[in-house]
C-alpha cells in the first residue's frame, strides 16, 4: 500500500512529467498498434484468397458415379483435405454460364466435363501440399486432367511468406522501439528522483522497497498508455473504415493482450531503468 501511495505521490509532485510519460508510451504503443492492425488486415485478406485454393479433377465421360463416389470418399480421408465436392456436367454448365454473363450462350450442353473439387484445410495450401494432393488425385484411372493454378498458388504462397517475414521483422522493430521509448520515459522519472533514491539507500531502505513504487508507476503508465493507444488506434480504424476500405479491428483477446503488453513494457522499462540506476549509485 505504501508503494502505491508513494507512486501516486511522486506522480502528483511531477504531474507534467507523468502526463508526458503516459502520452509518450501511448504514441509508441499506437505506432505498434497501427502496424498490428495493418498486419491482421493483410493476413485476413490473404486468408480469404487462400480459401479459394482448390484442386479440380476432371472426370471421364464414361465413368460410373459409384467409382467417383468411392474415389471422393478416399480423397476426403487425405489429412490435407477439408472437403470434396462433385460438380456434374449440368452444374458445370450452369456455373460457367453464370460466370460468363452475356457470353453465356457460347456454351452448349454437355461441352463441359464433370469434375471433383478438392478443398484443402487452412494452413495446408502451400504449393508442395497442393501438388502432392493433385498428383495423388491424378492416379485414379477415370481422371482425365487435374488443375490447381500451379503458378497462382506459388505466387500466393510467396506473397504470404513475404508478408509473414516482413510482419515479424517490422513487429519486432516496432516493439523494440516501443520498449526503448518506454524505458527512456521511465528513466526520466528515475533521474528526476535520483537524489531521493540515493537518500533512501543511505538511510537503509531495501532495493525492493525503492524499486516497488517505480514498478507500480511503470505498470500504471503502461496500462494508461495502452488504453490511450487503443483509443487512438480505434479512431484511426474508424477513419479508414469511413473513407478508405473496410477493415477488421482487434478482437477482445488482442485488445487485452495489447493492454497487458503495455503494462509489461512499463514494468520492464522501470525494472531496467531503476536497476541500472541502483547499480550506478
Amino acid at each position: 500500500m505504501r508503494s502505491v501511495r508513494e507512486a501516486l505521490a511522486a506522480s502528483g509532485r511531477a504531474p507534467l512529467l507523468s502526463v508526458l510519460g503516459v502520452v509518450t508510451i501511448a504514441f509508441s504503443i499506437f505506432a505498434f498498434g497501427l502496424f498490428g492492425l495493418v498486419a491482421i488486415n493483410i493476413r485476413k485478406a490473404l486468408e480469404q484468397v487462400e480459401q479459394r485454393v482448390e484442386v479440380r479433377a476432371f472426370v471421364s465421360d464414361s465413368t460410373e458415379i459409384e467409382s467417383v463416389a468411392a474415389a471422393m470418399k478416399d480423397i476426403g480421408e487425405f489429412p490435407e483435405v477439408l472437403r470434396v465436392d462433385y460438380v456434374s456436367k449440368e452444374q458445370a454448365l450452369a456455373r460457367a454460364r453464370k460466370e460468363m454473363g452475356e457470353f453465356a450462350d457460347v456454351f452448349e450442353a454437355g461441352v463441359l466435363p464433370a469434375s471433383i473439387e478438392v478443398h484443402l484445410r487452412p494452413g495446408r495450401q502451400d504449393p508442395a501440399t497442393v501438388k502432392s494432393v493433385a498428383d495423388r488425385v491424378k492416379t485414379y484411372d477415370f481422371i482425365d486432367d487435374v488443375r490447381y493454378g500451379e503458378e497462382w498458388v506459388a505466387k500466393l504462397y510467396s506473397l504470404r511468406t513475404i508478408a509473414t517475414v516482413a510482419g515479424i521483422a517490422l513487429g519486432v522493430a516496432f516493439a523494440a522501439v516501443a520498449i526503448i521509448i518506454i524505458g527512456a520515459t521511465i528513466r526520466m522519472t528515475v533521474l528526476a528522483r535520483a537524489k531521493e533514491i540515493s537518500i533512501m539507500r543511505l538511510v537503509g531502505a531495501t532495493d525492493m522497497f525503492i524499486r516497488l513504487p517505480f514498478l507500480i508507476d511503470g505498470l500504471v503508465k503502461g496500462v494508461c498508455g495502452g488504453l490511450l493507444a487503443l483509443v487512438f488506434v480505434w479512431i484511426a480504424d474508424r477513419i479508414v473504415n469511413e473513407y478508405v476500405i473496410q477493415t477488421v479491428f482487434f478482437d477482445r483477446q488482442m485488445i487485452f493482450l495489447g493492454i497487458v503488453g503495455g503494462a509489461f513494457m512499463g514494468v520492464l522499462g522501470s525494472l531496467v531503468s531503476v536497476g541500472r540506476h541502483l547499480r550506478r549509485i
Partner: protein
Amino acid sequence: MIRLTNVAKEYPRSGVALAQVSFQVKKGEFVFLTGPSGSGKTTILKLLYMDDKPSEGEVWINGVSSKTAKGREISRLRRRIGIVFQDFRLLEDRTAEANVRFALEVTGSPKATIRAKVSRALTQVGLASKATSYPRELSGGEQQRVAIARALINDPFVLIADEPTGNLDERATRGVFQLLRDINASGTAVIMATHDLDLVRRSNYRTIELNHGRLVFDSAESPASARPPEESLELTDASGDYRESI
C-alpha cells in the same frame, strides 16, 4: 565495533585509492579522519557504510563483514549508521520535518512512533521551531542540523560525517561541531572526515591522517608523536549558546 584490516581499494580508472589501511574504532569513540583531497577519506567512509567494497582486506562494522554482506543485510546495517554529507542531501520539496520523517518512512517504521521520534530528533538538533520550514528557507548550518536529525532518527551506534562543516561559515561550523560532540557524549561514536585542521587541533579527539591512500598517522597508535593536541577550544560563544545565529 569497527575494524579495518589491510584494506585496499583500487578503481579501474583512477587507480589506487587506499592501500594497507588498518585501524579500529571503539564504541562511543570520536575520530577525525584528515588528509588532503584525494587521500582516501571519503573512500574509507564509503567502505564503512558499505556503499563500496574493498578490493583487498576486510571491513567489519557492528558484526557485519564486507566479505559476506549483501543487499538486505547492508540495508539493515545502514539503519544503525547515521550518515551526514557536506552538501546536506535534503529533499528541497519537503519540509525539515518531512525530510527527517522520510528516513523512518522508507525503512518501514511503525507509523504510530514516527511523529514523536521526528519531534525528538528536531529538538535534539535545536530546530523544533523550524519543523515546517523548507530547506531553502534555512541557513547552511540549519540545513546541516536537519541532515544530522535525519541521521540520528534511528539511534545509530555511529555517525559518519563526510566534511560536515565544509560548506559552513565559522560560526555555523562551531555550532555543528558542538552538536556532534554532544551526540558523541551521549554514547554515539562519531567518525568525521574533515579538512579543517584548526578544528582538529583544538580538540582532543583521536586523529587518523591519510595521504595518497595510506594511513600515515594515528594519534591512538602514537600519542606522543609530532602532533600533540593543542589546548582544547571552548566552543561556546559569548552568550553560552553554541548554535550559530539565525
